[in-house]
């Protein structure tokens, strides 16, 4: 069953490589995306009915990976289906050649498959290989349009992330060395679920060193502040469905890797060493991102810098730990993925209509695109952290934990930077929505399937903010409990 989760997108990708009519590519890609989504939901269902981790030849699905699988499934499906109209429009605008569309769909499915492998791999080394593979595949997607800017973004992305991730490998090698002394048999020494039980035998100072390398390496990929330089370029230049996947899912995959190592390091060292580092980097990312948000001119770069800030919030929440911290961070991970995904997709449509990325020139989106524009504004409020959306709840949890552990200072800094970013986002959103539409545009926006795809995540966000069903709450508490216990006893 779990293997089907990797096989479905890969087979779809393979079929898409064959030359055929545009219509057929679209059908195959959508069918593949829906199938992958269904398999993912079935896997999650399977996990909950058994209430224990599913293990299958090197793949491992436990509570934490279920959260990530859910995020990949939701956004993967939405982005693939959304691409269809988006790509047609790009062909109309002569940005894409029709014969290369198959390659695009193929790459996007491979990209999704590598992300699934990242969160399902039981072996640290396989996870590293998968994350490196995501870089390689998505760099091609970022540079897909072949424009100068896109190529520049793709080049920076692949070079910076490959260099960064090499350091993560060094961290993994050190972990392997530490584990070799205890676990003996080499195949098991690198598997997550066999590492946790023997964690207290590992050498603490080695693990501290390994964690620093891991944080730098995967932190580059996650877009943590001083290492984020590739992120705004890649996110702004990629085709919008790809930006949504990069921002909503790929960053989370890198964060997932950091979380796993963080839990392991805490278990080994028995100290707050890794938490301290994560809190530090989390705060730096939040503070570092907001100057760029406030002065931004490019709509997609604005959203990209907001992602840097939200990665900071998630990492901070994980670093703070405890029930509030972990719950907040995990909820925020899901909420940010849904909200930012929607925003990038809306931005894609808006950019296509206005034929520019500059915020100044996008006036009257509420009149030109009543539905997309409104969803865009609502999602901006959501991402800013306004109630009734889920991000309000998750940000409050993290802030609450901040006040609880570090007193007034940390919570205050957190709330201030969230508030400043919120004003920035609402300022831009308001200017775009409530201004008058230049007369050269004709107002018409027929309802399409894409609007459903945009509204669906927004509804989920509202639900998360108002009412989370008890069964889902229980699932969350179980995941969080296992994280507090050190990740060792899987739920």
């Amino acid at each position, binding site marked *: 069953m779990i293997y089907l989760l990797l096989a479905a997108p890969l087979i779809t990708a393979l079929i898409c490589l064959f030359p055929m009519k545009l219509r057929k590519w679209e059908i195959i890609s959508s069918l593949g995306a829906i199938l992958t989504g269904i398999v993912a939901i079935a896997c999650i269902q399977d996990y909950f009915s058994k209430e224990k981790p599913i293990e299958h030849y090197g793949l491992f699905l436990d509570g934490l990976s279920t959260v990530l699988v859910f995020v990949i499934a939701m956004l993967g499906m939405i982005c693939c289906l959304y691409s269809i109209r988006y790509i047609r429009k790009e062909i109309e605008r002569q940005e894409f050649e029709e014969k290369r569309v198959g390659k695009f769909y193929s790459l996007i499915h491979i990209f999704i498959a590598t992300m699934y492998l990242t969160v399902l791999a039981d072996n640290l080394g396989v996870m590293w290989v998968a994350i490196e593979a995501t*870089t390689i595949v998505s760099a*091609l997607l970022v540079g897909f349009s072949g424009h100068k800017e896109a190529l520049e*973004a793709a080049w920076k992305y692949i070079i910076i992330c490959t*260099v960064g991730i090499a350091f993560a*490998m060094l961290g993994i090698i050190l972990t392997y060395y530490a584990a070799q002394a205890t676990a003996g048999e080499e195949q098991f020494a690198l598997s997550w679920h066999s590492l946790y039980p023997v964690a207290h035998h590992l050498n603490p100072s080695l693990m501290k*060193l390994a964690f620093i390398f891991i944080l730098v390496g995967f932190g580059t990929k996650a877009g943590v502040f001083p290492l984020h330089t590739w992120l705004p370029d890649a996110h702004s230049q990629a085709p919008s469905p790809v930006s949504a996947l990069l921002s909503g899912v790929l960053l989370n995959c890198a964060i997932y890797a950091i979380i796993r190592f963080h839990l392991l390091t805490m278990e080994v060292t028995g100290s707050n060493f890794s938490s301290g580092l994560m809190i530090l980097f989390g705060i730096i990312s939040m503070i570092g991102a907001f100057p760029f948000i406030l002065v931004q001119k490019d709509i997609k770069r604005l959203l990209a810098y907001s992602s840097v800030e939200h990665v900071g919030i998630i990492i901070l929440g994980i670093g703070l730990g405890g029930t509030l911290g972990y719950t907040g961070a995990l909820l925020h991970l899901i909420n940010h993925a849904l909200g930012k995904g929607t925003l990038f997709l809306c931005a894609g449509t808006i950019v296509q209509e206005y034929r520019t990325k500059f915020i100044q020139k996008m006036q009257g989106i509420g009149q030109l695109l009543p539905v997309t524009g409104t969803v865009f504004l609502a999602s901006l409020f959501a991402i800013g952290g306004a109630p009734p959306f889920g991000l309000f709840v998750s940000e409050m949890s993290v802030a609450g934990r901040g006040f609880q552990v570090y007193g007034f200072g940390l919570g205050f800094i957190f709330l201030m930077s969230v508030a400043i970013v919120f004003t920035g986002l609402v300022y831009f959103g308001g200017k775009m929505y409530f201004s008058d539409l230049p007369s050269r545009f004709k107002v018409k926006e027929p309802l399409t399937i894409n609007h459903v795809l945009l509204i669906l995540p927004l509804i989920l966000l509202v639900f998360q903010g108002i009412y989370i069903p008890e069964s889902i709450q229980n699932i969350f508490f179980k995941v969080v409990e296992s994280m507090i216990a050190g990740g060792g006893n899987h739920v």
Partner: protein
Amino acid sequence: METIYGFFFLMAGLLMLPMRRIKVNIALLSLQALFLSIIAFSEGLGSAFEWHSVAIGLLTLLVKVIALPLILLRLVNSLQADQEKDMSAGPIVSMTIGLLIVGLTFGYIVPVLLQDIRVGHDLLGAAVATILFGCFFVVSRRCVLHQVLGIVVMENGLFLSALAITGGMPIMIELGIFFDVLVGVLVMGAIIYKISDSFKSLDIKRLNRLRG
């Protein structure tokens, strides 16, 4: 014996730093990979036969000594890019920084920072220094092709450190890394083609459109 191979491995990396000609650099890179595979062979065939190390040695020989340099040479030839390329730091500065890296690694990083790793030979120092060489190489070069070479140098250093510290990672992972390196270089090559097509240059100074 391994110390001597390690020394040559280190020297190949160090010599790459001041070289401007890309074909010379590719040759040195291939030489470096050759020493890497010799080290793997000597670990595998030394006191006892270990098929695992031998397999790594063979793979290194095939992928990094033969396949990668050939791919890179083809790329250089088809782009006609074998002129001397500008560097952000001159040859003398580069060499000095290289020597500083060696000093830093053997004087501080290995004995102090990595003191918990007890492997009993000097390969670790060569490996760590090579990773830093690769890093410096990527940063100091202005030609996109050179940056790819720098990344392969880093990867070589990583491989040697895996060999030196743990005696090699599990074979499945090594295979995965080889595959990633190969695909990664191919993809970078494809992007370089497009860059040279639309920028009419391979200088990263031209890649300056995205700011702020």
